């Protein structure tokens, strides 16, 4: 159990609550100080990046973590709620403030810090009630970061719900025309999923009995231990119906976030209505919470059910990949197209996870990160053009390549990364996913079918390139300026990462591969 502290407080607590501090400062400032508010918010995100680099320097990639307490890093564990109900049947409720990182969560922590910074810079174009916006923005970061590092189910759930609230306002207040519809849809949809999660969480709690203390527990690491469930309890017998049902319930909760077909329709609406920076956060980080939940909670707690549902999950993944790509192809709105491509690419993640192979799972987590960076750039680029032209219609453009060459270059790199061009990061992750899927005989055929996604993917991306960038420039766009320095500051770091990880993927793979090996061997045991 390695620890790392700054000023006596654990690094992960800093990562989680520093944005709250920022929020308090922002709220304390007068509303008119928009410049100060912007820079303070961005400054806090920079701070978060610094801490994550500090963590990276102290991260021991040889440690696996997952279900072993010893292998976790940056651990913080104190009792949070400890209530005794002597008379009632509930018994003692013991909830811990339990944070920690391993190869499954640490990459996501890095991603959140990175995208959080990018989003903050991209938010500079917000011109309406900045104070409220940045307060919500910072709060959102806390919710996401907390979810990634919480190792107590109750705590996880709290952060999970916390995240909803700022997101609702960010879309509902600073969004586009149909922002209220989109915000409510997002909110209710996620809440609907949370209900399932809540039920399973409570069921797990009452069914569990910590082998050491004999108490019910929310501790995820303890819950992963099969001994935690006495044979007479709900989840006591491996492979029983309750376990399968619980897995399915959790899956729905997480699938809505991913989003997995048919729970995906909130996403295009949310994306289209959300301001650019929020789309970036949404695609860059928020969707990953769903797939992260699967590998952090569902798979290791119910490995039997994960194996049982391998095939249906692969089918859903294949639907996501192909259906998402087909829908993307039919879009006329630039942002909606990227939103559907997101659905398609998150399908790859699910496929890699469903393969339950080391290589596939490595690919899945790597793809989570890569999709985060690549899609973030794509949404930034949509924002760039929307800020200038106030339209996102794919058929409204053409010929931008010569008019905005730098913009063209950045977009092309992101586009080709999304197609899975070698030399760029997503190639490695997608190849891993396919190799993993193919290595699993049960889902082999599904994998082959999914692989046709690479053709559709190329088709809709290249068609988009053609419609937006090639050909003659309509005269009404004569006045468009090329991408600005601020916009480059938010996108170029991501581009650098996309290229670097494409050429030298070890930088990333080493962070997670031991944990993934551990996870898979634990699930397949």
């Amino acid at each position, binding site marked *: 159990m390695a620890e790392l502290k700054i000023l006596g407080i654990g690094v992960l607590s800093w990562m989680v609550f520093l944005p709250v501090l920022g929020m308090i400062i922002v709220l304390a400032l007068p509303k008119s100080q928009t410049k100060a508010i912007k820079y303070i918010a961005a400054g806090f995100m920079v701070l978060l990046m610094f801490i994550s680099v500090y963590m990276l320097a102290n991260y021991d990639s040889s440690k696996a973590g997952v279900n072993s307490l010893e292998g976790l890093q940056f651990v913080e564990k104190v009792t949070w709620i400890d209530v005794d109900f002597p008379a009632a049947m509930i018994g003692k409720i013991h909830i811990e403030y339990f944070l920690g990182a391993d190869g499954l969560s640490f990459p996501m922590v890095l991603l959140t810090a990175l995208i959080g910074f990018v989003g903050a810079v991209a938010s500079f174009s917000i011109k309406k009630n900045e104070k409220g916006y940045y307060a919500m923005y910072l709060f959102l970061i806390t919710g996401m970061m907390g979810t990634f590092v919480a190792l107590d189910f109750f705590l996880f759930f709290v952060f999970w719900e916390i995240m909803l609230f700022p997101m609702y306002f960010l879309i509902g207040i600073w969004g586009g025309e149909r922002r209220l519809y989109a915000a409510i849809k997002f909110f209710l949809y996620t809440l609907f999923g949370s209900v399932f999660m809540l039920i399973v969480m409570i069921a797990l709690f009452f069914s569990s009995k910590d082998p050491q203390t004999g108490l019910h527990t929310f501790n995820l690491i303890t819950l992963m231990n099969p001994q935690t469930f006495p044979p007479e309890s709900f989840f006591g017998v491996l492979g029983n119906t309750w376990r399968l049902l619980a897995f399915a319930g959790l899956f729905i909760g997480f699938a809505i976030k991913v989003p997995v077909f048919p729970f995906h329709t909130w996403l295009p609406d949310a994306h289209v209505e959300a301001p650019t920076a929020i789309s970036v956060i949404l695609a860059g980080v928020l969707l990953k919470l769903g797939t992260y939940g699967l590998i952090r909670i569902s798979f290791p707690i119910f490995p039997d059910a994960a194996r049982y549902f391998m095939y249906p999950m692969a089918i859903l993944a294949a639907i996501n990949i192909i259906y998402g790509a*087909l829908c993307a192809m039919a879009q006329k709105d630039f942002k909606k197209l990227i939103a559907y491509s997101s659905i398609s690419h998150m399908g790859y993640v699910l496929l890699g996870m469903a393969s339950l192979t080391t290589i596939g799972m490595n690919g899945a987590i790597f793809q989570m990160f890569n999709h985060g960076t690549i899609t973030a750039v794509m949404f930034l680029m949509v924002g760039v053009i929307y800020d200038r032209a106030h339209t996102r219609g794919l058929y409204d453009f053409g010929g931008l390549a010569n008019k905005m060459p730098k913009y063209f270059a950045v977009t092309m790199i992101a586009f080709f990364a999304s197609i899975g061009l070698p030399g760029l990061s997503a190639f490695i992750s997608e190849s891993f996913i*396919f190799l993993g899927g193919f290595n699993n005989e049960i889902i082999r055929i599904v994998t082959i079918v999914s692989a046709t996604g690479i*053709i559709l993917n190329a*088709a809709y991306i290249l068609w988009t390139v053609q419609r937006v960038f090639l050909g003659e420039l309509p005269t009404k766009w004569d006045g468009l300026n090329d991408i600005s320095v601020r916009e480059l500051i938010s996108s170029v770091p991501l581009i650098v990462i996309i290229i670097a990880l494409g050429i030298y993927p070890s930088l990333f793979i080493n962070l997670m*591969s031991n944990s*993934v090996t551990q996870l898979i061997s634990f699930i397949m045991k």
Partner: protein
Amino acid sequence: MEFALKFLPLAILIIPLVSFLIIIFFGKRLPRQGDWLGTGFLFLNLFLSLYVFIAFMSLGNYSITYDWFSLGANETKFTVGFVVDQLSAVMLIVVNLISALVHLFSVKYMEGDSKYSKYFAYLGLFTFSMLGIVITNNLLLMYVFWELVGLSSYLLIGFWYEKKPPQEAAKKAFIVNRIGDFGFLIGIMIVFYFIGNFAFSEIFSGISSGKIPSGWLTAAGILLFCGAIGKSAQFPLHTWLPDAMEGPTPVSALIHAATMVAAGVYLTARIFIMLSADALTFVAFIGAITAFIAATIALTQNDIKKILAYSTVSQLGYMIMAIGVGAYSYGVFHLVTHAFFKACMFLGAGSVIYGMHHIQNISEMGGLRKKMPITFVTFLISTLAISGIPFTSGFLSKDSILASTMAFGSINGGITIIIPIIAFLVAGMTAFYMFRLVIKTFLGEPRNKEKYDHCHESPLQMTLPLMILSGLSIFFFYSFNPFGAEGGWFINVLKSPESLLVGTKGAIYHIVSREEFHEALHHAHYPAMILSLVLAGLGILISFVFYFWNKVDTEKLKKALNPLYKFSLNKWYFDELYHYTAVSFVMGLSALASLFDKYVIDGIVNGAAYLTVKLSDFGGLFDKYVVDGLVNFTGGTVWVFGMILRKFQTGRVQTYIGFLVFSIVLLYFIFRWI
């Protein structure tokens, strides 16, 4: 071995990449926009690869592998590495030579283009990607460079993206190639599943120890070959290549000779020894069908570049077919000889187009030999080579392939006879349509007087590459015997490797040992040579009769053979077929998916929301009239009492005291009574 020499291939790979990076970032600021840099780098590269080749001759094969990354501690290792062997050593020279000459040619050809520096940057990227395919020693890395070739071809074919056709052509090239790559990828997965490694050496040793069951091996071979079907424009994915003519002409020369299309043949050669009998049958038939289809289409085309494009497709079919029938070395030999004379023809066509001010239709040309003597002579030499006339390189390689197909037919018998038949037919057709092109372009009288008058020979930067390339179409560069490649140094270097599956039998194919094949080949040599000469001569003769002496009215012939003529002119309607089937299907599916998403799935979501709202409305009404009714009733009662009681609240102390006294008295009696 010298340290520096060992890493020379790596330097050769990196140099064009450096050229790309420098020009793309600083091209506009460099003098002459950096064209000299790209060109100079490529000539340096050419020099280096000659050096590598000479060193290889004395040192033999070697390969260097580095760790790229690995998964977990004891898990799969991914490596990068390169190999120098007979195949890559030869290809390094071919790619660099042609790329260098194309660079040189482009300096003049692309002069004044608004994206001049970008053009040279992309050429560098293209060369880099192709060199990567050539020297890599593992399958995954081959796929990596394979896709990069796809990217660079996209950029170059669509270089003039302001206009619609280049956009479409670039997109088509990329997507059609992706279809082939899909197969390639699955093939890689199969290999990885059984072998757990991507290095060719590991794969081959794994196969010889029987790690891949035979059915899977055939599947893997065919799927890997799918990649080649895409890149080398084989039937049924050949349709992108003629469209790719929309790119600048020097790019066509590069694509058709040294990069891209060569990649598919190269891949097939690389995996030749692991192809099972059935996979080889597939390869051979695909090659033969492609050669035939493309040749029949080339007969009737009028655009100078389109004719060359189809002739490339047809010749690629030859190469693939050669590898399929087991004549590995001849297939690669033809790849090399074809690279030179086809590059010469494309650059020659570029020179014509340049001189004719962007006329590409051969019906508007004629008589250009006087205006463009160098272009004419070099083009003629190349045409003789592609037609398989003795003393040219093309004769050596083509004749060997024809003999091989005959040998193949004699070994296997039965239906395999089709392959030599097609091969010879195509040889005749090739001679015919290539001379048709030469006659209509360079001989006879000018048909467009105005354009002709303004026409001029191209400058030295353009004619020099033509002269070099046509020079390389002469036999003695490859073998001192003008009538046989066998025994020449080139074939000695480029020996066929022995298949890993010698002796195995497929449905109609029997993989024989090299010795056995040679035996059959020996018998086929003279008959094949005589037959091919007769057919080529016949093709040329008919061409002269039709187009030079005008003894036959071609218009009448067209009418007489109208359905066939139309069929050929419209390229067997492949584009239409694909458009109305595959493309429409996917687009329809896409529209359907989108509608389904909008109305069904989102309909259910919104419907559920609507129902909930309605339910809550009902709840609201219930609340309002029933629940609230009760509440209001209670409230009302209280209100009534309140109204009454209010009367007592007069605000006068006397009244209150009065009430107080009254109450006390009342309470006293009540309690008493209780």
